[in-house]
């Protein structure tokens, strides 16, 4: 692990202010925190819509597509971030083209996604074996890293996130309408099909950026778990989106901090924290329901 390069394993003092200063003393940690914050906010927001639309499988596939994207980039000799972006957005368009996109029946979409998933993984395998001697890089791309985020990568993450959020702000309300009730939205003049394509592209962008922090296999930690947790806790859309972003941010910051002070990889901590928050929310809802039933039974 690269932490060894900085003179031994850092230990937390459990004085919050001192620990934050210690965390941010190195440039690579500053970059990790900036990129992590942007990515968490983006994933929390897009993830809310993904869970609402029931498109978690599409998100899963797009994240796996990051692997051939990164491998292809290494093979061609460009930055992996670019490979991720091209492959994720390309596959998003592929899913949109192969499914009917009406949102109510997801059978065609699920089959299309499964086929794309298998094919892109095979392509990634081919790229990796053509490249040879790739093992170290593949590992980082599958499970994430936080020590290797360059300044230019931070700029790119920020730019892509800004574009994605700007698009989401423009289409937010009709997209919400189409996600909840596609048929009525269509009758009201909402371009449901075009919005479905636009959302898949946004999802591709979010996945490509998130994968750079969490690794392609663990994108789900930030994309699904915070949004699913938020939707367990509240049925208010505005509050749900905010909660989703806040949970993604907390999970990322805590994950980065714990990873810094230990020898274990960040992907593990971010994913475990996200999973814990989801389990916690399910438990809370189960408990409130049970007490509600008990109150109803007594009344």
């Amino acid at each position, binding site marked *: 692990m690269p932490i060894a390069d900085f003179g031994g394993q850092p230990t937390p003092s459990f004085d919050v202010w001192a620990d934050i200063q210690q965390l941010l003393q190195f440039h690579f940690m500053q970059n990790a925190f900036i990129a992590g914050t942007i990515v968490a906010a983006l994933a929390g927001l897009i993830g809310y819509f993904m869970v609402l639309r029931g498109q978690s499988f599409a998100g899963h596939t797009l994240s796996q597509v990051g692997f051939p994207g990164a491998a292809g980039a290494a093979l061609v000799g460009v930055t992996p971030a670019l490979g991720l972006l091209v492959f994720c957005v390309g596959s998003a368009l592929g899913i949109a083209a192969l499914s009917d996109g009406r949102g109510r029946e997801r059978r065609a979409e699920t089959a299309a996604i499964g086929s794309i998933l298998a094919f892109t993984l095979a392509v990634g395998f081919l790229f990796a074996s053509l490249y040879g001697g790739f093992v170290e890089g593949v590992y980082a791309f599958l499970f994430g890293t936080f020590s290797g985020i360059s300044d230019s990568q931070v700029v790119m993450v920020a730019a892509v996130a800004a574009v994605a959020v700007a698009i989401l702000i423009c289409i937010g309300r009709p997209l919400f309408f189409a996600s*909840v009730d596609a048929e009525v939205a*269509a009758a009201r003049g909402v371009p449901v099909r075009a919005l479905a394509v636009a959302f898949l592209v946004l999802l591709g962008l979010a996945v490509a950026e998130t994968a750079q922090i969490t690794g392609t296999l663990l994108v789900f930690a930030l994309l699904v778990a915070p949004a699913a947790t938020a939707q367990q806790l509240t*049925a208010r859309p505005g509050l749900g989106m905010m909660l989703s972003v806040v949970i993604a941010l907390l999970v990322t910051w805590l994950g980065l901090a714990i990873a810094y002070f230990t020898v274990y990889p960040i992907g593990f901590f971010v994913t475990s924290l996200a999973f814990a928050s989801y389990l916690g929310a399910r438990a809370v809802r189960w408990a409130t329901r049970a007490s509600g039933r008990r109150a109803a039974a007594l009344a």
Partner: protein
Amino acid sequence: MRLAEIVEPPALAKPAPAIALSFRGAGVRLGGRWIWRDVDLDVEQGDFVAVVGPNGAGKSTLLKAILGLLPLSSGSVEILGHPATRGNRDVGYLPQRRSFDPDLRIRGVDLVRLGLDGSRWGVPLPGVGHRNTTARRRVDEVIELVGATAYARRPVGELSGGEQQRLLIAQALVSRPSILLLDEPLDSLDMGNQQSISALVQDICRTQRVAVLLVVHNVNPLITYLDRVIYVANGRTAIGSPAEVITSETLSRLYDSPVEVFRTKDGRLVVVGQPDVAHFHADS
């Protein structure tokens, strides 16, 4: 209220009732066959109209033509004197459906609010702007109107079929349409809920002066609430009061073959000898 202003007559002569919806020689052709053609009918404001007929006769197609979702192959459909177009705010719509996903974590009020401004671009800004306050008041008002206040703040997925149906009617009504199209809203409901939703819709027609077209499989549960019936069969339509339309003469003429209508002791109508619809579509 906007609608009231249009409808309220200047106290002169007896006003002619305003026509909410009119079909003139309208026909729809899909996949090379006419679903229905030469349809002429007028629906007045405040009318409660049931659309009945056998499966596959084109009842939902009639609604889609009014919504502007299907192009007409002939004739015209006008709403308050304007050609039917997609996204018309004068038309509220409740599509045929089973029910919402039990895991859908959206409150009833959010669902109703979408009927007001869901198709507008951008995102609603949180806060207390004038538009927001007005919108919230309107949403509460229409939820009160359909009697859904008690559960409007619970997630829709957790509500019963009848409760979801009331909220969806509120959603369709919230933008103050002149015409409300309800596609089989009674389908998945028990008898009690069928009665109460029918009474609610009749009340909406009377108090809000909204013309309602309600597609229904079995006209009996709501026959006492109705003003008129549109019977769709055999590529043709007939409109009139239930007593005029659901008769042996009218239905036999519509089907081109003898059909008999019986009235049971408790006032229910039974149609006998209604030919299979598929038969009619096989030749054209």
